[in-house]
């Protein structure tokens, strides 16, 4: 079992939640959808009992870390919101793939 992906993912979900409050329009709606997806993926990742040794684990962790670092605390105005959204979506895709692999094992 490993807590790192789960902890980082819960942190990303929380940061995206803050970001939703700081954005408007289409970006805000996209972020809301991503936030709900990240929330459910956090729960799915916990339920899947992910292992560090699992293939794709390091890649997923790196994608989440990268999205977390780009958002920072989420309070400041993000300059390139579309790039940030793409990074968050990439992190969500990586976790989804990891959870699917764990479920198939």
């Amino acid at each position, binding site marked *: *079992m490993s*807590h790192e992906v*789960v*902890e980082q993912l*819960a942190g990303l*979900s*929380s940061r995206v*939640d803050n970001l939703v409050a700081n954005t408007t329009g289409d970006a805000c709606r996209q972020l809301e959808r991503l*936030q*709900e*997806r990240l*929330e*459910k*993926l*956090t*729960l*799915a990742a*916990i*339920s*899947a*009992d992910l292992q560090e040794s699992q293939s794709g684990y390091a890649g997923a962790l790196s994608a989440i870390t990268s999205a977390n670092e780009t958002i920072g605390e989420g309070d400041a105005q993000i300059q390139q919101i579309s790039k940030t959204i793409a990074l968050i979506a990439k992190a969500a895709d990586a976790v*989804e793939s990891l*959870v*699917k692999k764990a*479920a198939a094992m």
Partner: protein
Amino acid sequence: MRPAPIDRLRATALLAITFGIAACGAPIPSGRFVAFADATRTIANDSVATYGHVVDLERTYMLYNPNGDKLNEASFAPRILDDSGRPLTFNFEPQLAFRSAALDVLADYADALHAFATKDYQQDLDAATQSLGASVGRLAATAGGASAAQAGGVLATVINGLGRAEIEHLRRSTLRDAMDKAQPGVDTLAGLIAGDNTEIMIAVRTLRKGILRKANSLRPATGITRISFDGAIQGVIVESEDTLTQLDAMNAAVAKIPRAHADIRHSLDDSASTMEQLRALIAEAKRLNKSYQSTVSSDERK
């Protein structure tokens, strides 16, 4: 006149033999086994309600965040659909069932030790052995993995091997062997239960956050409807906070079980043992039970 050296040697040897016989013949300190069994059973019993609250919270989360726009049989199933529409589940019930079964195995094992440590034990030991066998079977059927099933099997094997020992010092030596063999199994089960507690706590916080997020978008603007809505959300917050407190207390208590077990085993060799670890386990079990009882009282007041 001082006794001759040979007489002094004889006197010392006689004293040592007398103490040796007294130690061998001393009754098994069964009160320690009672206390260990009671504390372990308290943790196992209270965990059922705490895990039930986690499952309730998961259901509430799905009520606020159902799958899809149109209601159907799968609307409230805890799952997320991937890009191609295939479901990924996040049902925590199997994980929690494993933890509950593992705690029952530890509690049944402690009951069996307690039965064996007391006089006229055979009937109680038979009952405890049957209960342990059933709990180990339940543990093996859960999603806990091979190491949990193996650890449960070790405890069942040890208890099955206790058999009859009418003479006090034979029972003491049988208990020593049994507890030595069981210690790795106790360590493994307690470690597995306590190990994934962090993730269960993250799950509780994530579920609560998801309910609050959706509640904010659904919150009625004004009036009594708003107060009633807020009351329901307040209930979710209070209950989830209680659950987090109980999970924390449960983890602290479970982490103390292996050391308390080792403490009691050590006391079979050294009757002057301070039993600090057993006291620490009892204190944690009391703390957990107090937190659980206060939640029950608050539920009853509603």
